[in-house]
C-alpha cells in the first residue's frame, strides 16, 4: 500500500497531467482553427461567390443564407417563447402544471439535432409538400432554440420581485397593463440574452437543415420561401468531404473561422445584453 504522501504526490501529478492534456487540446483546437482559418480569410473571401464547387471564391451566399436562417428563426421563436414564459410566470396556477410545461419544453433540448432534420423532412417536405426550402430550416432552428429562449425569459420574469406586481396592481392597473408595463420591460434582458445564445447555437447547426433547407450550388438570395439557401455549416460539410484538395480545405477552414467568429459575436452580444439591459434593482 502506498503511503499517504506518495498518494498525494501521485494525485497532484495526475491533476497536472490532466490539465496539461486538456490545455494541449484546447490550444490545438483554437490554434488550428485560427491558423488555418486566417490563411483563407480576407475581405474578398467574405464578399465573393463560391466558384468551382467551393474550392475557389468565397462564402458570400453561404454567409447570407446562414444569416437569413437565423434571423427568421429569431422572428419565429420570439412570440412563442415570450408567450410561454409569460404563461409560466404569470398565469400558471398549479405548480404541477408548471412543471409539466417545463418538462415538455426541456425535452426539446434533449432531442438530437438530426431528428429535427428528419422531422422536417417528413412533415414539411413530404407531408406538406413544401420541397427543400429555407423557411423549413428557419422553423426547425426556431423549434430547436425555443427551450433556451423560453427558459431565459422565464428566469428573468421570475426574478422580478413580487412587490413590483403588488405595487402595480395596487395602483389600479389591470393585470394586462401590469404585464405590459412591468413584467415585459423588466424581463426584456432575459429574452434578448436567451435569443442571442440560442442563435449562436442555431447558426452552427448542420444536421437539422441539411436535408430540408440547403442546396449545394447556384444559390443566391432566395426569391421565394420555397427556395433552398446555402449555409456556412453545409458548405463546410461539402468542403470537408474533399479534404485532400488543398484549395477546398483552405476554404473550409476559412468558412469555419467565419462561422466561429459569428458565434463569438452573438455570444458576446448576449453577454453585453445581460449586463446592459438587466434592470438595476435596489432591493
Amino acid at each position, binding site marked *: 500500500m502506498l503511503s499517504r504522501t506518495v498518494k498525494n504526490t501521485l*494525485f497532484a501529478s495526475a491533476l497536472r497531467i490532466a490539465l496539461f492534456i486538456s490545455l494541449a487540446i484546447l490550444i490545438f483546437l483554437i490554434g488550428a482553427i485560427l491558423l488555418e482559418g486566417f490563411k483563407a480569410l480576407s475581405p474578398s473571401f467574405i464578399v465573393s461567390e463560391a466558384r468551382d464547387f467551393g474550392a475557389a471564391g468565397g462564402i458570400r451566399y453561404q454567409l447570407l443564407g446562414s444569416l437569413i436562417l437565423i434571423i427568421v428563426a429569431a422572428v419565429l421563436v420570439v412570440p412563442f417563447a415570450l408567450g410561454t414564459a409569460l404563461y409560466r410566470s404569470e398565469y400558471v396556477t398549479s405548480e404541477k402544471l408548471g412543471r409539466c410545461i417545463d418538462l415538455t419544453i426541456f425535452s426539446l433540448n434533449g432531442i438530437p439535432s438530426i431528428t429535427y432534420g428528419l422531422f422536417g423532412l417528413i412533415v414539411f417536405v413530404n407531408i406538406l409538400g413544401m420541397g427543400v426550402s429555407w423557411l423549413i430550416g428557419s422553423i426547425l432552428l426556431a423549434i430547436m432554440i425555443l427551450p433556451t429562449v423560453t427558459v431565459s425569459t422565464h428566469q428573468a420574469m421570475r426574478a422580478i420581485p413580487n412587490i413590483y406586481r403588488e405595487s402595480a396592481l395596487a395602483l389600479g392597473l389591470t393585470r394586462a397593463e401590469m404585464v405590459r408595463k412591468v413584467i415585459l420591460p423588466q424581463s426584456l434582458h432575459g429574452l434578448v440574452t436567451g435569443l442571442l445564445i440560442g442563435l449562436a447555437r442555431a447558426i452552427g447547426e448542420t444536421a437539422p437543415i441539411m436535408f430540408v433547407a440547403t442546396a449545394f450550388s447556384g444559390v443566391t438570395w432566395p426569391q421565394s420561401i420555397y427556395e433552398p439557401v446555402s449555409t456556412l455549416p453545409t458548405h463546410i460539410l461539402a468542403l470537408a468531404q474533399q479534404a485532400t484538395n488543398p484549395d477546398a480545405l483552405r476554404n473550409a477552414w476559412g468558412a469555419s473561422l467565419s462561422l466561429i467568429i459569428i458565434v463569438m459575436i452573438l455570444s458576446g452580444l448576449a453577454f453585453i445584453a445581460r449586463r446592459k439591459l438587466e434592470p438595476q434593482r435596489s432591493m
Partner: protein
Amino acid sequence: MNQISLNPRLRTDITFPKWNGLKSYAVGSALFSSTIIMLILGTLLIQSHPALFANDLNLLSEVWDPAGGQYGIIPMIFGTLIIMSIAMIIALPLGVLSAIYIAETRSDRLKHILKSSLEVLAGIPSIVYGLIGVAYLSIWVAEGFELQTGRVILTAGLLLALMILPTIMTLSEDAISSVPRAYRENAASLGLYHYEIIKDIVLPAAKADIAGAALLALGRALGETMAVMLVIGSLDRLPSPLFNVLASSQTITSKLGREIAESAFGSTHFSVLVLMSLILVAFTLILTIAAQKLFTKDPHNA
C-alpha cells in the same frame, strides 16, 4: 370591475371575470410550445410504424442490406455504444481531473483564462469538429496505428471526447467550486492531504452534479451527427473482432445523416431509419431528464 387581490403571491386568490387577449396569447403559446415535442414524437412513431410491425425485416440481425430486404440495426446500435464508451472513458477522467485543478487553483487569472477558453470551445459548431477530425485526427490515427484508413471507431470516439470535454469540464468545475469552503477548511484542519480532502469530502459532495454533467455530455455525444459522420467510415457491420476499435463502423446518427435523403419517403427503408431515430430520441431523452433530476437535487444538504 376586476376583483384584484393586493397579494399576488397567492395567485389563486385573483379572479378574473373574463379572458383578456394577453392571457389567451400566453396560454396559446404555452400550449403550442409544449405540444411540439408530442408532434415530433408522434410523427416519428407513425412513420416508424411499418418497420415496427413488419415481421420479415430481421431488425435485430447484424446484416444491413436494404436492396436485399435485410434491415439489421444491431451494427449501428453497437457502433453508437462503443463510440460513446470510448468518448466517456477518455473525457470523463480527463475532464473531472482538470476541473478539480481549475476549481482548486489559487490563481484567479488562470481560472478566468481557462473558463473563458472553455466557453469558446463549447461554442464551436460540430461541423468544425468534423473538419478537424478529417483534416487532423483521422490522419494521425491512421499514421499512429499504421492503418489504411483513419476513419475508424477510435477516431470517432476521440473526436467525441474532444467535443464533450468542455461540457464535462465546465459543469464539473461548477460542481466542485460550489462545495462549501468550510468543508475543505475543516478537513484541512484535521491534517488531511489535498488528495484526501478531494477524495473524502469534495468529490462525495459534488458527486450528484458531476454525474449530471456526465449524463448531459453523454446525451450530447449520443445525438452528435456531423463530426461522427465524417470520420466513422460508415461500414454497416459489426467490427471483427467485436472490440476492434481500429475498424470502421456506423452509428445511428451517421446512418441517418448519410441515408435519410437517399431512401424514398414511405418505403420500408425510410421507416426503419425513422425507427432508429426514435430509439435515439428515447435514449437521449432519458439521459437528459435523468441529468436534470440529478442537478435539481442539492447535494450539500445531504
